[in-house]
């Protein structure tokens, strides 16, 4: 149990990663797929942020009385990754709107049926 708790953030990362991928693969609804994609991307944010935390360290702002700081790099990287993620989901949702206009449905199997005709 202690082993589990010590690496809790990594277990959460793995859970979100697999959960997100499963939703993408298993769901036929195009919006649900995007939700899965978003969860999958979120797991990566945790993966990057976890090793950046230095135990006992404070926020990386130089101030008297503090010697140990956390690593600021992952926060900068993940800020960029979040922006990329937002752009991807926004574009994905816009495409789903257009697909709904063109096909009248956003279910994967129904769209495929219509395309086969």
């Amino acid at each position, binding site marked *: 149990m202690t082993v589990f708790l010590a690496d809790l953030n990594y277990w959460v990362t793995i859970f979100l*990663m697999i959960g997100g*991928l499963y939703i*993408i693969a298993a769901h036929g609804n*195009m919006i649900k*797929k*995007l939700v899965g*994609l978003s969860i*999958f*991307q979120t797991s*990566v944010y945790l*993966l*990057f942020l976890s*090793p950046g935390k230095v135990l006992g360290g404070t926020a990386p702002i130089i101030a008297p009385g503090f010697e140990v700081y956390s690593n600021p*790099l992952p926060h900068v*990287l993940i800020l*960029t*990754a979040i922006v*990329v993620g937002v*752009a*991807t989901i926004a*574009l*994905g949702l816009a*495409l*789903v709107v*257009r*697909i709904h206009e*063109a*096909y009248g449905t956003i279910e994967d199997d129904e*769209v495929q049926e219509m*395309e086969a005709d």
Partner: protein
Amino acid sequence: MLAAHLPALQVVIPLLAAPLCALFRRGFIGWLIAVVANWLAFAASIGLLFRVMNEGVISYAMGGWAPPIGIEYRVDMINVFVLLVVSGVGAVIIPFARTGTAARFNDTDQAWFYTMYLLALTGLLGVTITGDAFNIFVFLEISSLASYVMIAMGRDRRALTAAYQYLIMGTVGATFIVIGIGLLWAMTGTLNMADLAQRIPEINHTRPVLAALAFLAVGISLKLALFPLHLWLPNAYAYAPAVASAFLAGTATKVAIYLFLRFFYTVFGGGEFFASTPIPAMFLALSIVAMFAASTVAVFQADVKRMFAYSSVAQVGFITLGISMVSDAGLTAAMVHLFNHAIMKAGIFMLLGAVMFRLGSVKLEDMAGIGRKMPFTMAGIVILGLGLIGTPGTSGFVSKWWIVLAALEKDQWWLVALILVASLITMIYVGRIVEVAYFREPSAKAVTLREAPLMMLIPAYVLVAATIYFGLDTEWSVGLAQRAAAALLAGTY
């Protein structure tokens, strides 16, 4: 002064030109900006090539922040070759873009289209030139997001679902890549690739690094459309506008192949380490399946654009086959075919765009008899098709020659036989088009057909001429590829 900043200009020029197109909102001005930006980017690539030839590896500190802390742009023999392919193919395609785009879209949409095109170009050039692993991910997403938009602008409603599918699979691929990069960073504390290349080889047997290797292999394979991760490609290329099909078929998968070589040869430590992993064996098997399965599926396609999209999957198989051999000749074959295939496929998709422009369809049955109505367009498709087969006198022959040479070097006669049979299947689907276009009576649609406009034919014929030229004079293409292959095997960066 200007020469010192060439690595930055290579990416900054198209990046700044993209919002300019969006601001003007005029089709013609947008096109003009795109042409100028793309040609300047091509000039920057040529300038970089001369600098690399004279000075060796160029290291450029972005914004004056010294690497490895700051972002470094690093140009060597390998990526300058890819930069030339990407910006060069773009420089030929963009004059072609005007006629078809102006006929289909209103002013605003044209401007947006050129904006997306320039962003895709920026992203692909950025992935290739940067020496920072996280920077790769950011540029990869810039180019991918722009490509999804371009694909969704196709005239068929299936373009929308193709773009959606590509978005899902492309994002999963990019996320896999960033997971791999994250694990490498957690193990070494650096994101600079030259720095990684020094630190990773010592710890490349540890579990997190091997996990990173697996994530990167799957993520990049998705992006380069290695069989069976190619499912996004056929529809995306088939239903995208002609300009997008030609540009993406010529460059996007090629940049992913470069990325693969960069990570697995340079970062993880040369050919020796790569050969010790199970990846070459997997690549060998999957490449052979790709060559046969994708070519066979191509034979039975009714839509010619879709046929050549499947052919792209098969041709990527030839490139990955070269990579899987982990030898000088194999890597040379891969690099040469990367170059030759970019030219041939971009040319074919441009000429199919011309057929679409006049005929309004690229269905095989509709193309009956158009050989007499559009003689130059069809002749171009036939020459480029011969190149894909690997006929002597075309650049495709040079690629096949080197790949057969690489197989012979290892005494793998069975592989030589397989390569030749796969080329024969290519001949079947190219032959089908020739048969329909030249030996059948024109369909009702084709009777009143005219030859494609010169604005479309001339750029396409530049690529047709290049296919023949690089089939006869191999000094330049093979010479550069050989130097790149030697650098890859040694793992120098």
